């Protein structure tokens, strides 16, 4: 059995990142981290792989940089990685991203289960998982907070507006997991060492049979027309509690006619 997990490298959210004023694209540093939300997908893939004797292939699109984020996932235990890096992909929208990831999964072949996060930290469209599924002709079990594999039947707890649903589906399928579904492991020293020699394939979009005019901003059917600073809220009064600060809250609640 083979599990593909889609995960993204992003600039470290702890260090403020910037947009190129001309292209409006995010400036990508050489050092990138594994998107925090995708650590849950990687962990889920590893747990299912351990229980079902499967291989885990990481699939990622975006500037490869020094592959630091990808190595993080390999150090956690993924077996190999495919990183699609192509200058022409800059400015691609969600659908183009999904087309590239779906093509990479198809070219890899033999994938029974595709795992993704629910939404990425920087793109946060939340649509890439369903797009991948539609392009591969598979069902997508989204918003999964619990995933079990019973033979070749997937059983998922899918969050709903009023609680959750038990959803069942035979493989092959796409599952988008929520954060909190599992507790991502920290790479061990052994894992970090092993990651250094794991295979990382770096095809271009053309290698996957995707035409140059179907990618990037032009191929995405959308164009960023402006980026501006939002009007920001100004901070009000700050007081240090010396035992009486609750009074200030009471007064404000009175003023707001809540009490």
């Amino acid at each position: 059995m083979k599990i593909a997990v889609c995960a993204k490298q992003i600039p470290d959210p702890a260090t403020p990142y910037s947009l190129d004023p001309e292209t409006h694209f995010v400036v990508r540093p050489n050092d990138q981290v594994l998107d925090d939300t995708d650590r849950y997908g990687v962990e889920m893939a590893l747990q299912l792989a351990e229980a079902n004797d499967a291989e885990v292939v990481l699939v990622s699109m975006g500037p490869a940089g020094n592959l630091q984020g990808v190595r993080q996932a390999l150090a956690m235990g993924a077996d190999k990685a495919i990183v699609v890096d192509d200058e022409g992909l800059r400015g691609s929208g969600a659908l183009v991203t999904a087309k590239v990831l779906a093509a990479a999964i198809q070219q890899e072949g033999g994938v029974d289960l595709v795992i993704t996060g629910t939404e990425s930290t920087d793109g946060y469209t939340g649509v890439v998982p369903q797009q991948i599924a539609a392009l591969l002709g598979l069902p997508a079990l989204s918003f999964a907070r619990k995933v079990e594999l019973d033979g070749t039947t997937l059983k998922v707890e899918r969050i709903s507006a009023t609680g959750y649903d038990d959803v069942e589906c035979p493989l092959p399928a796409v599952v988008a997991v929520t954060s909190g579904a599992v507790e991502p492991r920290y790479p061990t020293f052994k894992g970090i060492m092993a990651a250094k020699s794991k295979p990382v394939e770096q095809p271009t979009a053309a290698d996957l049979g995707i035409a140059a005019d179907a990618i990037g901003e032009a191929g995405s059917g959308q164009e960023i027309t402006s980026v501006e600073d939002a009007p920001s809220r100004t901070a009000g009064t700050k007081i240090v509690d010396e035992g009486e600060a609750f009074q200030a809250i009471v007064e404000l609640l009175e003023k707001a006619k809540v009490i």
Partner: protein
Amino acid sequence: MATTWVFTEEVAGAPSSTSLEMLTKARSLGGDLAAVYVGTGSPEAFAAVGAHGATRVFHIDPGDALPAAGVTGALAALAAEHEPDLILFGMGFTDRDVAGRLSAALDRPVLANAVDLEVDGDAVTVVSEILGGTQIVKAAFTGPKPWLGIVRPKAFPAEPGDGGDPEVVGVPMGEAGPAVIAARHEEAAEGPQLADANVVVTGGRGIGSAEKWSMVTDLASLLGAAVGATRAVVDAEWTAYSLQVGQTGQTVKPDVYLALGVSGAMQHLVGMKDSGTIIAVNKDEEAPIFEVADLGVVGDVHKVVPALIETLRARG
């Protein structure tokens, strides 16, 4: 705008509040307005959709199938027949699933996280916020129609107009695929609903433990407020996922928002920064939540909140 469709997900027997917000906005764009209603449906629900401006309702009932595939099939066929210009979706679970799937099926992009729409003649620009709402990005559709957009909750007010009962057209599900809903579970929520509450009391990881969570619910019930939570709290299972406020959770705009032991991460701020009055209690004076708070109390929630509860109880 010549023809706009608004995806209308049914929640607890009624159209989602975001769908009514989108219908109100779409009504102001002029042209034909229809709702794509996904759920069991009822005369009351259709009337509500009509009152908010839809003259026609395409009704799709997914039954026990996982909705995305079958609804997308039905919607793709409808779109081919009627050629709408713009299809708007909310951030609900089925909304987002169908928006993604339809985008791939029709080979059209989808612009997400809209907080506003600018329509100028035949051009549509989607306004969204990035980096925790500190920057505003505008993006225009450039390719062929229909154009697909996903709109955040509370981007527009929901106001009924003078629309009457709409024409209801039943539309069969498309090929539903192999995924089925085997059972549904309701997680009962007490008190006012987050989306509509005038006052919201949100607890963060600073509350400390599941046992101490009652301090949040006690304060909320004294204030007639809805309870909210950060992702750290729902991940730790101190309370239900549905109470999460923020990027992945709900967007709220109450008159008063109390944030207790909440750091104010970017992804939390986008869900609450447009509240009327924001009150924050946090022991770290550098916590980012103070940058948006009208009243910031630097202190321990385990001291400030019980004192507040006691005072409110004494007032009766």
